[in-house]
């Protein structure tokens, strides 16, 4: 039985990271994730763990690179604009095969954008985000509890694949206060990080270790192709083994909603309203935004299903759904433009989704 708390998602991220044995956090102020950085500033020194406020998000991600290269579990958290500054190093960590966790608490975009909720970083999170061929597993919590649990999963998957993992929440999930049971989750053994730099004296074989982000330059791989083959193999494995989604009322559903994060909770509400109205609606809630559940969507499309994507952006998840159905089914959208008021405080509400369901079914 873990410790029960009534906390917001941002705070749950902290307790989750601590439970997962995270040893180092580096962060820079940006709304709406400040509560995360502030939690680590308060709690990590008490736990004898490492906290430092960096000089920028460029600093945060590169401090994480350093701590990860030294072999400890390290993370940072940020929001859209800061997340953009981190992309070069995210790409470097994919090449260097360095594990770490980055939490992106999404806010409005593009550019300065409002500091409130949105879901417009989906592409940037799920397509790698930086230069070159690589992907990151992207986890999408839809509650404070999941913010705690998925951060723990993120650390496990990061170490398992030696690759960064992104936890993609938003200002609503981040600031929503809910009951959370904080409990350390056991995921099973992982290999020792013999590759990490620690000073030769700390290596059993006394030989030097090099962490570099240009795999072939220093002959970590025999050739550039060998590096790329290795990365491709890793991405395939992640896709095959790490897909996670929640199917809600999917068995007989003919109108399938697809959503993640806070809009998935809105969609679930709308599915219940539709079901009460006799409409066979269901929901696929992405828990991993990448890998994406192409297979189950394609199967439903082949059975004649229709799709309604609910996302707080101009339409990003919808591209993956269209890609999955390959023209076999209609794909509709409730987007950021369907919020209940035009200001940045607007939200996509269940009755709006329900109206759309009635319109297209």
């Amino acid at each position, binding site marked *: 039985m873990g410790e029960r708390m009534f906390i917001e998602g941002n705070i749950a991220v902290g307790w989750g990271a601590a439970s997962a044995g995270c040893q180092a956090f580096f962060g820079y102020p940006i709304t709406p994730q400040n509560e995360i950085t502030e939690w680590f500033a308060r709690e990590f020194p008490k736990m004898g763990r490492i906290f430092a406020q960096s000089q920028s998000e460029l600093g945060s991600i*590169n401090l994480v690179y350093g*701590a990860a290269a030294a072999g400890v579990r390290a993370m940072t958290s940020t929001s859209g604009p800061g997340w953009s500054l981190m992309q*070069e190093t995210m790409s470097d960590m994919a090449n260097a095969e360095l594990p770490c966790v980055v939490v992106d608490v999404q806010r409005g975009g593009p550019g300065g954008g409002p500091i409130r909720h949105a879901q417009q970083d989906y592409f940037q999170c799920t397509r790698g985000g930086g230069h070159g061929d690589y992907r990151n597993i992207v986890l999408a919590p839809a509650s404070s509890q999941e913010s705690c649990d998925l951060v723990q999963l993120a650390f496990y998957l990061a170490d398992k694949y030696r690759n960064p993992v992104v936890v993609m929440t938003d200002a609503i999930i981040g600031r929503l206060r809910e009951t959370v049971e904080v409990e350390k989750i056991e995921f099973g053994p992982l290999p020792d990080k013999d590759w990490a730099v620690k000073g030769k004296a700390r290596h059993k074989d006394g030989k*030097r270790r*090099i*962490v*570099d*982000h240009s795999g072939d*330059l220093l002959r970590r791989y025999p050739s550039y192709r060998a590096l790329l083959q290795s990365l491709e193999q890793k991405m395939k494995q992640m896709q095959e083994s790490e897909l996670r989604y929640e199917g809600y009322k999917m068995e007989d559903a003919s109108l399938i909603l697809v959503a993640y994060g806070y809009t998935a909770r809105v969609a679930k509400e709308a599915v219940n309203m539709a079901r009460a109205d006799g409409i066979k609606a269901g929901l696929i809630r992405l828990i991993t935004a990448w890998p994406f559940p192409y297979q189950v969507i394609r199967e439903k499309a082949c059975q004649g299903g229709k799709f309604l994507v609910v996302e707080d952006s101009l339409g990003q998840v919808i591209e993956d759904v269209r890609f999955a159905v390959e023209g076999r089914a209609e794909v509709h959208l409730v987007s950021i433009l369907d919020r209940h008021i035009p200001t940045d405080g607007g939200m996509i509400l269940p009755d709006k989704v329900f109206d759309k369901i009635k319109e297209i079914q």
Partner: protein
Amino acid sequence: MSQGGRLEDAMNEEVKVVTKQRVAGRPKLLVPQIAGFIYCPGCHEPLAARAIAEVLEKLGMGDRAIGVFDIGCNSFLLGMLDIDAVLTPHGRPPDMATGVKRVYPDNIVFTVQGDGGLLSIGADPLLGALTRAEKITIIMLNNAVYGTTGGQMAPTSLEGQVTTTTPNGRDLARTGFPTHAAEMIATFRGVAYSARGAFNTPKNYMRTRKYITSAFQKQMDNVGLSFVEIICACPENWRLSPIDSLKWIEEKMIPEFPLGEFKNVDRIE
């Protein structure tokens, strides 16, 4: 007894033995480069790796050192030092060094970067480390150009210096003035040591080696951030022979970038 007799004869003759002792040569920590020796003839950057290797050997810190190298010509120094090392994105070594040092405070963690790598793209991490007074050592190789990419202007390019991005010579009115890292860094409270050396003469090489020793010693004594700037010849991008590059350092670089220690304190309140 004939055999014995011969033995006696040997006893009386003066027997000279010539021993051959190694006086100087490749330091033990300086290993053949992983990717092959890629430096241009006369480039001084490999001498920085040599000096670091010699200092680490003298301090006995080879197996507790972690080098953090930048993108640039100095990237390949990483392969030449038999120590744990990290290659970082361009300009980011002070960030990585902070991350590593925070995890292993008892190790010697030092960065090696170019002038552009530290003062241009690396200004953000430099200022971060200086503000946080990280107990790391930063070594900047000042060759007044961006070497790897073919000789563009750097923050330390001199007035009138021709580079591929100042084809008519650096015009200070349009590009600003050479940045003086050692003096600037010495102004930070969290800095325990800041010096500038060069490799253009044997005396300067030995002096610079002493500066590196002092810088590492500050880190071992946990005093504060230590910095060593080293003027390095870049014959290829200066369009000069190695020997003429030494002259250019003497007549142009050193007058602009005077050598010496700019800060040397044993305690920071």
